[in-house]
C-alpha cells in the first residue's frame, strides 16, 4: 500500500471511530442509566429497543435555531464548540488499539505528553464558552472549569509519568510493548488517580460542579442551542471514549490479554475501554455531586500525595528489578 492511501485510510478509520464510539457510549448511557433506575429508557426510535435514539437527537439538534445572545462576544462564542471537540479527535489519532504500528493512527515519539497536552487544550473551549456567553451562570461555570483543571491536571500528569518511568519510554506504543501483567497491581494506585483526575477533567459526575444543571443551569453551555450545543455534548462523550482508551493503554495493558493477543488484540482494547466507559456511566448514577471545596480538597490532599507515592514506588521497584 502506498503512503498517501495508507495515511488517508488511517485518518478515515480514526474519524469513523470518533463519530461512532461516542454515540455508542451515549446510547449505552441512556439504557444503562434507565435500567439502574428501574426505567426502560428510549424504546421507540429505530424500532429495536430505541437503538436510533441518538440519531434522532442529532436530527433534532440540527433542526433547532442557532441562537447567539445579543450581548455575547460573537466570534469566540461560535468558535468555542470546535475548540472543545477537535482536541479529542486529535487524541484518538495517537491511541494504539493493536500491536505493532499497524493499528494506530500515528505513532508519536512523545505520545503521553501529546495526549495530555491536547486534552488540556479542550478545556479552553469551555472557558471560551463561559466567558463569551455574557451570562453570569456561564461565567461561574467557566470559573469552576478553570479551577478544576488547575487542580486535576497535576495528579493526572504525575500518574502518567509513573507509567512512563516503569516502561522507560513516553511513547504509547512503546509502553504497550514493555507491558507485563504484573504492572496492573504495581500501577493500580496510579490507575485510580489517572481515572479519577480524568473524570474531573471531563466534568463528569461526581465532578460535574462546573455544569451542575440544578444550580448554574449547565454552566458554560447555558446559552448554547442546536448544533453547537450538540457539539459540546459530543465532546463530553468523545472525552469518555478517550479517557477510557487512555486508561486502558497506560494501565491495563491495551491489546495484551490472557489469549489471542496476536490477531484479536484490538478486541481486548475495545473490551477494556467499553468496561471502563460502563464504570464512568455507573459512577454517574451512583454518586452525588461533590461540592467545590470537596473537589479541591480531594485533588490536593488525596490524589496528589497518592500519585507522588506511586512515583516513589515505581522508582523503587524499577531500581530493584534492574
Amino acid at each position, binding site marked *: 500500500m502506498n503512503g498517501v492511501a495508507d495515511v488517508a485510510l488511517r485518518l478515515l478509520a480514526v474519524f469513523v471511530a470518533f463519530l461512532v464510539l461516542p454515540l455508542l457510549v451515549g446510547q449505552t448511557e441512556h439504557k444503562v442509566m434507565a435500567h439502574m433506575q428501574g426505567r426502560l429508557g428510549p424504546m421507540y426510535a429505530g424500532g429495536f429497543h430505541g437503538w436510533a435514539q441518538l440519531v434522532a437527537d442529532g436530527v433534532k439538534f440540527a433542526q433547532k435555531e442557532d441562537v447567539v445572545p445579543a450581548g455575547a*462576544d460573537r466570534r*469566540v462564542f461560535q468558535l468555542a464548540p470546535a475548540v472543545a471537540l477537535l482536541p479529542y479527535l486529535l487524541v484518538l489519532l495517537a491511541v494504539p488499539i493493536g500491536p505493532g504500528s499497524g493499528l494506530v493512527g500515528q505513532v508519536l515519539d512523545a505520545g503521553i*505528553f501529546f495526549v495530555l*497536552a491536547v486534552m*488540556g487544550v479542550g478545556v479552553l473551549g469551555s472557558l471560551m464558552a463561559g466567558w463569551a456567553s455574557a451570562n453570569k451562570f456561564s*461565567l461561574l461555570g467557566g470559573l469552576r472549569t*478553570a*479551577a478544576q483543571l*488547575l487542580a486535576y491536571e497535576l495528579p493526572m500528569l504525575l500518574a502518567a509519568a509513573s507509567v512512563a518511568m516503569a516502561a522507560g519510554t513516553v511513547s504509547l506504543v512503546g509502553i504497550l510493548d514493555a507491558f507485563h501483567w504484573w504492572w496492573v497491581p504495581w500501577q493500580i494506585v496510579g490507575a485510580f488517580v489517572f481515572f479519577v483526575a480524568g473524570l474531573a477533567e471531563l466534568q463528569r459526575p461526581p465532578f460535574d460542579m462546573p455544569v451542575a444543571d440544578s444550580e448554574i443551569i449547565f454552566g458554560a453551555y447555558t446559552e448554547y442551542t442546536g448544533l453547537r450545543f450538540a457539539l459540546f455534548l459530543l465532546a463530553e462523550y468523545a472525552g469518555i471514549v478517550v479517557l477510557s482508551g487512555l486508561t486502558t493503554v497506560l494501565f491495563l495493558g491495551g491489546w495484551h490479554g490472557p489469549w489471542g493477543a496476536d490477531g484479536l488484540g484490538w478486541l481486548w482494547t475495545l473490551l477494556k475501554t467499553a468496561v471502563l466507559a460502563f464504570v464512568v456511566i455507573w459512577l454517574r448514577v451512583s454518586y452525588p455531586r461533590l461540592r467545590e471545596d470537596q473537589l479541591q480538597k480531594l485533588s490536593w490532599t488525596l490524589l496528589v500525595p497518592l500519585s507522588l507515592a506511586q512515583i516513589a514506588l515505581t522508582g523503587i521497584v524499577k531500581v530493584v528489578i534492574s
Partner: protein
Amino acid sequence: MTPSHAAVSAAAAAEHGFLSPTGVEITFLLIGLVTFGAALVSVTTRQLVHAALWLVVALGGLAVEYLLLTAEFIAWMQVLIYVGSVVVLLLFGLMLTKAPIGRSPDADSGNRWAALLVAVAAAAALVWVVVDAFRTTWIDLDGPAAGSTRVTGAGLFQNWVLPFEALSVLLLAALVGAIVLSRRAKAADAAQQARAGGAAQQARAARDGQRPAEEGKH
C-alpha cells in the same frame, strides 16, 4: 552538541543556501509570521480576554515551530505548560476579577513607548545572539529526529544537568516564596480585621489571600 555533530552540520551548511527553500522551510516561515502577528495583536488589542486567546495562537504557533524542527517533546511540553496551564491561569484570573466583553478603554498604559523600546531591544539582542551562535548549524530533517525525547533527555541530564538543577532550586524558592507571601498577607489582613472589622475588608482579605495561593499552587 558534540564535535562530530558540529562537523556534520558545517558540512551540511556548505550545501545549503537561502535561495531554494524546501517545503518545511517555507512552512516554518509562514507559521512564524502567524505567530508574530498573533503576538502583536495580543499586546495591542483593547479586549482583555481576546488578548489571552491570541496568546494561545502565538504559543501554539511556537509549538508548531518546535515540531517542524523535530523537537517533538519540547513542542508538546510547550502546549501542556503554556496553552494548557498558563493561559488557563490567565483566563481564570481575568474571570475572577473582571472579564468585560468588548473594549476596555483603560486597557492602555502610558508606558507603551518605553515597553516598545524594551521589546525591540530585547528582540534585537536575542536575534543577534541566536543568529551569531547558530549561523552555520543545519538540522537534517530527513534523518533520525535530532530533537526526539531520547536526545533531549540525554542532553538535559548529561551535558546540562547543573543548570537544570539550579533552575529547579530557583523554582522551588519561588514556590516557597509565594506561599510565605500569601500567608503573611493573610495574617496581616486578619490583624487589620480584628481592629477595624467590616464585611468589605473581609471580602478583600479573602480575595487577596486567594490569588497568590493560586499562583503558588502552580
